[in-house]
């Protein structure tokens, strides 16, 4: 187990190295001189020379990379070109907002996806199964930005039940906070619920055909007890770890959802940065997102081993 853990953590180093190279090279995709782009309307040669020196653009790319990595490792992601605030500060402000949204979305996804998957597998071939499969197809195929717009139309404009946009922190007023985030969280959770439903269904179908479930039934246990105590416990282990890997979908979805519902989170930060050509912010956000994703991947792997005794040896 310790060996596995050490090997798995060591593997992260080259991955993170390539992630950093990838993100660093994004800036070099810019057509033309980055200093000119950063200077914007300002074409004064002195200003451009100052920018070039400040961001070490006059140095070779590998040297620039080393400086950038050094900064990142000490928590310095650079400074937002537009609002002159450290990128780290911006990330610290926006990340908790997206985390609240992501947390609620995951809860919604699990509450819908897992029961739907279990019912679909237990009642295979019935109307319940077809209904659950249709739900999964709907969830996977609906663009979340369209779903968001339609929900705003229904619940905010037509029925007037929920606010169409804005954000209130949980600590300030939890009721208002939940009212503002329930729609975007549902939009985000919907697609993941569909994926979880499919995973749960196939895992349950596999488990329901296994010998120990047959033994449990042969012992005369009630169907409810067979499904809830024997089958579900084993089927859900891979589903929960696979669920953790859906964080990428969640963060991608957050970009558009936060835009539609005007939620000042991580997704909105990256879109605003893209439009303001605030490249340091784009790089910082992508790097943090990738690091979170890689870390969660690692945790999911470890959790999978921990809960599966056959893999522990």
């Amino acid at each position, binding site marked *: 187990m310790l060996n596995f853990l050490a090997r798995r953590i060591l593997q992260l180093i*080259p991955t*993170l190295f390539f*992630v950093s190279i990838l993100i660093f090279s994004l800036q070099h995709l810019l057509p033309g001189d980055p200093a000119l782009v950063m200077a914007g309307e300002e074409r004064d040669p002195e200003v451009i020379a100052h920018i070039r020196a400040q961001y070490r653009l006059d140095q070779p790319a590998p040297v620039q990379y080393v400086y950038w990595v050094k900064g990142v490792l000490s928590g310095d992601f650079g400074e937002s070109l537009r609002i002159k605030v450290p990128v780290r500060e911006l990330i610290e402000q926006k990340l908790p907002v997206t985390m609240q949204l992501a947390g609620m979305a995951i809860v919604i996804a699990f509450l819908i996806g897992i029961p739907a998957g279990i019912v679909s597998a237990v009642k295979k071939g019935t109307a319940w199964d077809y209904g659950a499969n249709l739900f999964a197809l709907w969830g996977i195929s609906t*663009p979340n930005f369209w779903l968001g*717009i339609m929900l705003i139309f229904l619940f905010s404009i037509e029925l007037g039940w929920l606010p169409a946009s804005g954000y209130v922190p949980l600590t300030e007023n939890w009721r208002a906070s939940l009212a503002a985030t329930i729609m975007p969280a549902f939009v985000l959770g919907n697609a993941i619920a569909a994926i979880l439903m499919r995973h749960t269904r196939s895992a349950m179908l596999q488990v329901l055909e296994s010998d120990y479930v047959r033994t449990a039934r042969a012992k005369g246990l009630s169907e409810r007890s067979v499904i809830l105590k024997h089958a579900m416990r084993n089927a859900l282990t891979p589903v929960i770890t696979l669920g953790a890997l859906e964080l990428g979908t969640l963060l991608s979805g957050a*970009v558009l959802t936060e835009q539609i519902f005007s939620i000042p989170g991580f997704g909105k930060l990256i879109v605003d940065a*893209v439009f303001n050509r605030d490249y340091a912010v784009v790089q910082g956000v*992508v790097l943090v997102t990738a690091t979170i*994703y890689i870390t969660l991947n690692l945790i999911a792997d470890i959790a999978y081993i921990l809960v599966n005794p056959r893999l522990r040896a």
Partner: protein
Amino acid sequence: MTDAALGAVQVAASDELESPARRALRRLLRRKGAVAGLVVIATFIVLALFAPLISPYDPLATSWTLVRKPPSALHWFGTDDLGRDIFGRVIYGARASLIAGAISVGIALLIGVPLGLLSGYRGGFIDALISRITDAMLACPFLILAIALAAFLGPSLGNAMIAIGVSTTPIFVRLTRGQVMSVKVEDYVEAARAMGNPRWRIALFHILPNIMPALLVQATLSIAAAIIAEAALSFLGLGQQPPAPSWGSMLNAAQRFLTNAPWMALWPGLAIFLVVLSFNLVGDGLRDALDPRER
């Protein structure tokens, strides 16, 4: 021999003579969902190809007297904030979406499959290098990577397709590599090697045809994801630029007029949903039809 027995022999013989592609097609056409998906996709392709003949109005023609008119006999889907016919714009928008889906997945296949073949077949340092780069790309959430790339390349439909294609590439590298690893130990590959075939020939003519089914399924599902991604980038203003019609940019405009013109948001969203659903249905159907365990 009885008639029934003769019939059985004939069926078995024709089944054996049937090519794998034909067998897969026959199985695919037995699946109602996949057939419905194929019909919807074919309809959208026809609409996109013959848009000038089918669309009743010019999708770019504005009219101040027709601003935000609800659906009617003259304008089936209503008109938008500039008085343009939404039905015509949805039909022309199909072009951007379908082209973006096909070209970006084409880019991903063109880069991803050769790299996956090289990585899986050669092994060693090249495999380790390609795998780590793939891991790094997969660590960045798909849409965030596509947005970052599109932003750095500049907003246009062409750049959006490149951004989506590059972001989709690691999926194909990983899939191809995994498939090659499982196929390269098969007897027929050993036989081809024993006959003295060069490596590139074995990879292209012996391994690639045998991993095509998995690639085909993934490509179909990836087109669905790419169409959503193109709509998302256009929605954010990073894809097709106005006034050219695109479902994503139509939704962006619609968001501002949700209170008094909700039809502006309904039709482009429904079009994206239908096309994406159809590609997902065909992808699922292909997966079942090409699964050897289903025989």
